[in-house]
């Protein structure tokens, strides 16, 4: 649907779809409490939805409307939700990992310094294979293991960083092995199977909750579409794509449910229909939502708008009526 809307001109810029990787997001995030935090990358629509942000808020944000989860100011790559503890949404790779480490640090701080004994909030940091060659990744593995922070580093290894194959970019492509080098367990899991992911996620999250420290989980997964909607996706071998499409996590789960008689075909069809309705409703809501007014331009730059300073007339700039209209020059 996002792709359709993009090609119809409802959204612009860089949009990164998550098709094929759903098992990772669902497997991990559905085990979390509301107070636990999730940090993602630009490929964050599904992480937002899994964490509880409404489809309407996400779609509105993609359309750049003021009813979006970030008031239209973030866009596809910057999904935030304070209510659901989704800490972003980062465009540069690796940028979110230190932020996730900080959130985990707060959890430990609250337990040990502020003496909130029941604070066992866990943070999940999602990122890709390309990020695992970035300095911030290694720096944070070190700090998290050093201070036993309640964090799980989840690598969504889809083998490709835009057009750069993981094997061409990495000296030792087995990412999970880098965990033990820093003193934390490194686990490799089939990221196309949601139940396997969930099992591994359970151990990692429980470990973090008990205060035993971080875990590095590498999920073998694949994105069915290009890196973004602007990516022609010419480099990937069709045979590789076919191999992974055959392992589509949603189809696989459907098959599992039917075979194990956990639900009937009719039940699943009803779920499908419901999803369609939710999506249609989200699009309609986003379409009908207003664009941000000009007055929104200068809001939220500073938490304390005095930060814009004192103007020549002696008043704070934020007291100028043009400021609230969004027409002041700052």
């Amino acid at each position, binding site marked *: 649907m996002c792709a359709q809307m993009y090609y119809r001109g409802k959204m612009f810029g860089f949009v990164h779809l998550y098709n094929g990787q759903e098992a990772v997001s669902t497997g991990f995030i559905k085990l979390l409490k509301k107070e636990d935090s999730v*940090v993602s990358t630009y490929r964050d629509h599904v992480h937002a939805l899994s964490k509880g942000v409404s489809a309407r808020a996400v779609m509105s944000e993609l359309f750049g409307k003021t009813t*979006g*989860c*970030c*008031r*239209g*100011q*973030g*866009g596809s790559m*910057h999904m*935030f*939700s*304070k209510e659901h503890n989704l*800490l*972003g*949404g*980062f*465009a*540069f790779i690796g*940028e979110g*990992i*230190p*932020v*996730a*480490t*900080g*959130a*985990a*640090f*707060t959890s*430990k*701080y*609250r337990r*040990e*310094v*502020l003496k909130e004994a029941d604070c066992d909030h866990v943070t999940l940091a999602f990122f890709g294979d390309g990020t695992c060659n970035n*300095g*911030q990744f290694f*720096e*944070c593995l*070190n*700090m998290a293991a*050093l201070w036993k922070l309640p964090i799980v580093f989840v690598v969504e290894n889809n083998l490709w960083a835009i057009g750069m194959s993981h094997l061409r970019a990495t000296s030792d492509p087995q990412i999970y092995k880098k965990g033990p080098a820093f003193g934390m367990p490194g686990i490799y899991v089939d990221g196309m199977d949601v139940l396997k992911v969930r099992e591994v996620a359970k151990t990692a999250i429980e470990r973090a909750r008990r205060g035993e420290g971080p875990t590095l989980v590498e999920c073998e997964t694949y994105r069915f579409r290009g890196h973004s909607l602007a990516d022609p996706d010419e480099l990937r071998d069709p045979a590789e794509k076919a191999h992974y499409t055959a392992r589509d996590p949603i189809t696989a789960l459907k098959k599992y449910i039917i075979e194990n008689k956990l639900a009937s075909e009719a039940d699943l069809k009803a779920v499908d229909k419901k999803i369609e309705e939710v999506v249609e409703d989200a699009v309609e809501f986003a379409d009908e939502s207003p664009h941000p007014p000009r007055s929104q331009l200068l*809001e*939220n*730059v*500073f*938490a*304390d708008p*005095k*930060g*814009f*300073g*004192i*103007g*020549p*007339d*002696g008043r*704070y*700039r934020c007291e100028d009526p043009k400021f609230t209209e969004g027409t002041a020059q700052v």
Partner: protein
Amino acid sequence: MAAIFHGVGAATALSPSPSHSVDSKKFQLAPSRSLSARKGRIAVVRSDSSVNLSLNSRGRKDHLWIPNAVATKTDDSAASTASKSGHEILLFEALREGLEEEMDRDPHVCVMGEDVGHYGGSYKVTKGLAEKFGDLRVLDTPIAENSFTGMGIGAAMTGLRPVVEGMNMGFLLLAFNQISNNCGMLHYTSGGQFTIPVVIRGPGGVGRQLGAEHSQRLESYFQSIPGIQMVACSTPYNAKGLMKAAIRSENPVILFEHVLLYNLKERIPDEDYICNLEEAEMVRPGEHVTILTYSRMRYHVMQAAKTLVNKGYDPEVIDIRSLKPFDLYTIGNSVKKTHRVLIVEECMRTGGIGASLTAAINENFHDYLDAPIVCLSSQDVPTPYAGTLEEWTVVQPAQIVTAVEQLCQ
């Protein structure tokens, strides 16, 4: 150059009052320091590149100036109570005092940086804090500026109020990614959902032969980042005040300290006070020319001011303190009075604070200027190691005197 300024016991001068005009003739200005006198100081450069300037034992009884903070609405309660005699303190101790008071006041305030804990900070600003507050509240980080600054930002988003120390401001270049992308932006891109009440502080500026990379002025690099505030402290009084205000602010604030100013001594009030983050400080009112400066250059300006006064000029000296945003009210009032502006800064010429300030004044107060704005900045040169060359990269008092004389012709 580190100078020692002893506060004079005159109680009247210490209480900041809203409309305080200082009669400059009342105070005896310290004799000028010649080059040879400066060279007489002993600078001990440690292997970790921190510098301890041992203070000359011959203390100076006469003082140079008691800076009076511009009284603000928040300062009023402190100003109304009669000021006690206060206590003498060095600038780095004032920073520590401010930090400690805020940490006592709010348990969410924490410090993170390299060697801030057990070592007490490479300039001793956090000395003793780890023993008092514990290793988690005063966190010794590994050498990973980008990541621990990002960690500070993540912690700020989730409820803490971290003070991130860059051992030297130059090291924060490594954290530029986090400062620019996350620190400044996340409040906006999250639609106002997350606040980032982080304070990033550290010593910068040209020191005593520290070499090019340890002598950087990062104000110019950071000033364009939307969403952050920048302040520069220059006296123990405003160091403590700005530190406290920055910690209490909901906005991310970068507090620039200067390596050579850490040993300044001044008498500061005992009671709780903060300095407004957006206001400039009137150092010396005058009539002939407005001299705008900040950080260490304030002392070069005041030294030049002494010479200028002897030559019959009456300069008005303003320490702008708030590097972003500029306090256009105080600056504007001064320009409207004197019609001549000289900016003296340690920042580089190209794209520095002075450049922005020149543009801002031209834009807002063009009609009031009788002469083009003159901006004296450091040379666009990587700071050389050799002492003589290093001296010539920064603005010296003699240049300031010449510039004022030319401006006032």
